């Protein structure tokens, strides 16, 4: 009889699906602690077959790109020189104006 009653109690646990309200709303604490485990990555290394990689053969492309870079730099320099001249001229005229006003007073 004891075995039968134990079996019925086992049925009560295994077939029921009730749960406490707190666990149902908040979610029960899990045994799994891996959720915050950060996977450590290996440091960067040169690939083993890096030196076997083919080198670029077309040198014309490199020359063209270098010449374009030089042209752009020259252009930027010329623009900045012009800007300096303009600001210098403006500064001088302003100074002269202020000095004239002071002298008049």
């Amino acid at each position: 009889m004891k075995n039968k009653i134990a079996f019925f109690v086992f049925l009560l646990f295994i077939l029921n699906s009730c749960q406490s309200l707190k666990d149902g709303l908040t979610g029960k604490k899990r045994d799994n602690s891996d959720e915050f485990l950060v996977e450590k990555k290996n440091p960067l290394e040169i690939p083993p077959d890096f030196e076997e990689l083919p080198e670029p053969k077309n040198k014309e492309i490199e020359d063209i790109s270098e010449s374009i870079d030089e042209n752009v730099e020259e252009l930027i320099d010329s623009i900045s020189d012009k800007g300096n001249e303009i600001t210098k001229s403006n500064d001088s005229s302003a100074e002269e104006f202020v000095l004239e006003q002071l002298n008049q007073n």
Partner: protein
Amino acid sequence: MLKKQFSKKVFIYFLIISFAFFLDRISKIYILNLAESSGAVNIPLTSFLNFILVWNTGIGFGLFSFDGSTMYNLITILIVIVNLIIVYLMLTSNDIRGYLFSIILGGSLGNLFDRLYYSAVPDFIDFNYNNYHWFVFNVADIFISVGIMCLIFVELFFNKSNISNEK
């Protein structure tokens, strides 16, 4: 004659199982529809009874509620085996215990259906008194619990009668 009696018994078992299963299903569908329309279910009906939807992935009384699918699948397989044992016990019983096993089986199939379909069982009946909440359960749990309680009482009663007959 015996065969006719057996088929009649099986038919009654089938009706009881269907009644328990579909009553449970209707209640769960109603609650899940409420949850779909309003986002969540938290309906205070009386001072001691609420409808609040929570999902259980474990077994009774919130045990074995793990995230892992392996544990969940193992529990589900165990429940299927237990259901088959109940079917065997139901069909071999010749007294009231057969009907009680059919009540338990109806509720158990209701919960098993949810385990397979939703991968969790919705619970929504929340009894509370003085801020103390009993476990949240569903209609299937009522059938299972009542059936098992009655089985335990019948077992105790029948054993007493057996003892008195032996004396």
